Every structure is written in structure tokens, then in C-alpha cells.
């Protein structure tokens, strides 16, 4: 078991064997291909941003203005988006659903992961394996039967349709991630607490959870990202415009015949991505350990 954080931080300090290659050589073998890949990876976002701040009349006029740049940026599209559409409501829906589903999944995952790793009841190994298998069941094969289930339970077209179904995507992932973190906590700590008369509940709440905070943060922000990104359930289970989440809503709201829709579409995509990118900027290391942690376990 390797500590997910040390693998990323490690190796940065030493120079390794890089003194063996000269600068011009590195320019061709490293910096050039790397810059090309980075430019390709970032271009769609640059293009999104430029389009979102371009004046309407420049959008479709590629001859008189260089499309790669704009000399007269405008907040017109973003302004329209925030004050003339239901966009703030969609943003709120997305956030509310993502946060609720994340909290529910984290609670369920903490208990499950702790039980599998530390209570070691009969069949704990099998349960761990089954949860891993659940991770491999994609929403694309579940959404049709789930839509009938959601309908039967009377959840159709309510936020609960998503709040209760998203945990099926989040729990397997979070449980596996937390299992990795719980394994690194020394047994001795728990044994001491048991001898001092602590209950399992106290051990979990006062010893294990405080030590697993980095894991909890990783699981939480990664779950938020997954919820924000989810599309097929949100598209299938929600019908009314005012209850939709951002990805579904902007797709249906701005794809009418309007030829200037590109400005509002790009503004919608930009504003919808920003909360996640900001969250990401604060927790880069946690994201990376969440992503690689679940894969490596």
C-alpha cells in the first residue's frame, strides 16, 4: 500500500538523471511536444471564453475581425444568462443535488469502508469485491429500468430522483477510496481505545475519521465533480425546465433556431464549469489522489 500523496510529491526534489540531456535536446523531446499537447487540451476552454465575451455581431463575422481575439470584450452574454434566463436556478439545482448526494454517499461509504477494513465481519472480503463490481456498472445500462423504478416510487421529476440515484455512482468509488485510507491507520490506536472502553462508534468518530480527513476531502470533491458531470439520469428523470441541472438545461434552453445562440451557450458552459474549476484549483492534490487512489487500490 503506497500513500497516495507521497507518490505525487516524491521525486520532485531530486534532479534524477536529467543532467544527462542537454537543453536543445530537451527543447525538442520535452518542451515542444508538451506545449503542443497542452495547447490542444486547453484550446476549447480558450475558445469558450473568447466566444462568451465577444460582441454578438463579431461572432459570425470571421472576415473583418480576427476570430482568435476580441478587442471589445462584453459581458452581454453572461449578463443575459444570469438575469434573463433561469440559469441561477439551474446552478442552484445542480449544487443542491450534488451536495446532498455527496453527503448521503459519504455517510454510507464511511460506515461500509470501516466495516470492511476494520470490523472484518464474515464475508467482508466478498462485500468489498461486490462494491468494486458495482463501480463497474455504468449508468448507461441502468437508466431505462431506473426510470421505471423512479416512476414507481413517485420520485419522477423531483430532485430526489437524482439525490437518491447518484449515490449508486458515488458509494462504490468513495468506499474503495476510504478503504485505502482506513487501512493506513494503525491498529494499535484502535486497540488502545478499545481497552480504554471506547465503543466502535466512538472509535470511528473520534479516532478514525479525524485521521482520514484527507481521504474524506478527496472523496467529497471527487463526488461533487461526478454529480456535476452526470447527464443521462438528469436528462431522463427530470422533465420541468425549472428543476433541471446545468448540463441538461443549457442544452435544451439555448439550442433553438437563434443564430446568435453561441454566445449564450458558451457563457453557460463557462459559468457552469467555473465552480468546479475553482474547487479544483484549491484541492488539486486531493483530486489527483482521489483519481489515482481508487484506481490503485
Amino acid at each position: 500500500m503506497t500513500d497516495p500523496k507521497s507518490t505525487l510529491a516524491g521525486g520532485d526534489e531530486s534532479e534524477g538523471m536529467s543532467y544527462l540531456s542537454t537543453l536543445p535536446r530537451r527543447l525538442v523531446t520535452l518542451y515542444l511536444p508538451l506545449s503542443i499537447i497542452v495547447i490542444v487540451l486547453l484550446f476549447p476552454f480558450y475558445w469558450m471564453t473568447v466566444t462568451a465575451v465577444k460582441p454578438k455581431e463579431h461572432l459570425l463575422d470571421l472576415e473583418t475581425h480576427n476570430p482568435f481575439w476580441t478587442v471589445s470584450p462584453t459581458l452581454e452574454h453572461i449578463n443575459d444568462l444570469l438575469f434573463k434566463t433561469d440559469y441561477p436556478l439551474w446552478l442552484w439545482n445542480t449544487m443542491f443535488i450534488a451536495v446532498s448526494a455527496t453527503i448521503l454517499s459519504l455517510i454510507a461509504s464511511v460506515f461500509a469502508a470501516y466495516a470492511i477494513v476494520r470490523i472484518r465481519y464474515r464475508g467482508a472480503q466478498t462485500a468489498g469485491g461486490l462494491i468494486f463490481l458495482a463501480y463497474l456498472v455504468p449508468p448507461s445500462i441502468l437508466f431505462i429500468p431506473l426510470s421505471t423504478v423512479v416512476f414507481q416510487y413517485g420520485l419522477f421529476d423531483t430532485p430526489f430522483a437524482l439525490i437518491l440515484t447518484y449515490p449508486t455512482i458515488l458509494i462504490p468509488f468513495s468506499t474503495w477510496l476510504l478503504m485505502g485510507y482506513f487501512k493506513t491507520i494503525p491498529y494499535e490506536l484502535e486497540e488502545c481505545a478499545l481497552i480504554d472502553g471506547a465503543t466502535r462508534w466512538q472509535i470511528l468518530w473520534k479516532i478514525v475519521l479525524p485521521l482520514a480527513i484527507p481521504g474524506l476531502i478527496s472523496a467529497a470533491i471527487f463526488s461533487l465533480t461526478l454529480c456535476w458531470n452526470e447527464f443521462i439520469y438528469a436528462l431522463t428523470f427530470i422533465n420541468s425546465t425549472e428543476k433541471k441541472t446545468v448540463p441538461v438545461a443549457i442544452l435544451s434552453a439555448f439550442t433553438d433556431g437563434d443564430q446568435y445562440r453561441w454566445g449564450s451557450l458558451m457563457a453557460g458552459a463557462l459559468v457552469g464549469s467555473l465552480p468546479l474549476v475553482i474547487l479544483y484549483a484549491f484541492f488539486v492534490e486531493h483530486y489527483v489522489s482521489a483519481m489515482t487512489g481508487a484506481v490503485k487500490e
Partner: protein
Amino acid sequence: MALNWTELRMNRNWLGFWFMLPAAAFLIAFLVYPLGLGIWLSFTDARIGTPGKFIGLENYEWIIGDSKFQTAVFFTLLYTFVASVFKFAIGLYLALLLNQNMPFKAIMRAIILIPFIVPTVLSAIAFWWIYDPQFSIISWSLKQLGWIEGNIDFLGDPWNARWSVIFANVWRGVPFIAISLLAGLQTVPPSLYEAATLDGASPWQMFVRITYPLLTPIIAVVMTFSVLFTFTDFQLIKVLTNGGPAGATELMATMSYNTAILGSRIGEGAAVSTAMVPFLLAAIMFSWFGLQRRKWQQGDSDD
């Protein structure tokens, strides 16, 4: 003494049961049950609003003979195969580049992951605009350079549309693979490379003899996930082409949506999505053996 011991074990099992309950309840109600229900529905003639009755293999017989389904299976396999190969090659290359020493390494890694963070639908909308038939920035740039005469019809022509969506999928998938493989690369001890250098090994030999073998377990897992998610992709196609032109970019997932939800033929749609299961099982088996090999390599006991 023996009695106490069994009591403790009983206790432990009950405690385990209560701790597992919330997670198990969610997974059984919203994952296991729908999974079974989906298979059942694929044997019925259910429509939206009517439960339907058992009709045996009729749905499967119908979809197998349907040329739209055949095209969807063909394109799903092509999409998964081509996109996965490119994602793997570019992702591994990018991971190797990022593993070298350079200034601003941490910032570089952070930037690389952005396409993975931004919701797929939102970046797909950006691609939609980049692939616009009239105002595509790619067509404009190529025209300025004098390489092409007219605009490229990215999403209107069947094969252009196929390559365009595959490109968008590769773009979206590379960061995940690169960053995961980078984490794997960082666990390879530098002393191995130092020893190989002293023995006069070329960089290519070091890659083939040291890096690649040590990386295989993580490659197996990462690529299984990648194949799984590519095979069941829905979002990108829904936004960019919605299966068009004339069904050329229809995936099995989008076809099941169009059949079951838009066409209200639940049974037939369930048959299309259940038909994905054998492929997923193949991918899971692949992952399983990758994991087994990893455990064996580490000499890890069953913990």
C-alpha cells in the same frame, strides 16, 4: 472461553451488518434491482405507461435484424477501439513527458487535468462550436493558411462526424490516463534506471525492459476503466451529433435512449442496453486478471 469467542464473532457480524446497511440499501434499491429489472424488461413488450408482458427473445431477434442496431454496434466497437488506442498512446506519452524534471511541473500537471474536471457536456458544447459547419475556427484557420478551399463539414458527413467525435473523446480521456499512469511511473524506483544507464541501456531499452513491465498492472486497470466508460459513452454523442448524420455516430447507449425514452419502446431499449453487458463482462474479466497479477507481483497477502 469458546462460548465467549463465538459470541464475539456473532457480535462482530451483527455490527458489520448494521454498518453495511446504508450502502447496501442504496446499491440494492437503485443498482442491483434495476439491473435485474432491465434484463427482465428486455424480454417484455413494455412501453412508457404500460408494464408489458413476457415475449421471450422477440426484442433481441428484432434488434439483431435491425440495420440501425448493427450500425450502432459497429460504431460503438470502432469508437471504443480507436479512441482507447489513441488515449492510451497519447496518455502514456504525456505521462512520460510529465515524469521528467522541468520547471513548473506541479502547475503543468494541474493544467493537464482541467479537461477531466469540466463537465463533459459543457466541453462537448465547446467542441460543437469548434465543429460548426460554417463558422468553425479550424476551417477558418486552415483557409487562412491556404490548405483548404471550402469549409470542412465536420459533423454533417458520416465519416467526418465519426472521426470528429472520436477526437473529442480522446481529448476528454487523455488527462485521466496520463495522470493515473504518472502516479504509477512515480512508484518505479530511480535506482533501476541508474543501474540500466551504467549498463549502457538506451532510453528505448529502459522503457521496454523497466518502465513498461512495472507499469502493466496499473495500465490494465486504467485501460479497463477507460474502455468501460468509452463503450458506454452517451453525453458526447448526445451533444455533438445526437447519433446523426443518418445514424452514423449512433452508439448503443444513445440508441437505447432514443428507443426507450424518446420512442417510448422500453422493452426494445432495454434489450439494446442489455446487449452491452457481455462486452462489459469481458472488460471486467480483463481488469480482474490485471489486479490478480499485481497482487502476485507485490507478494501481497490477502488483507
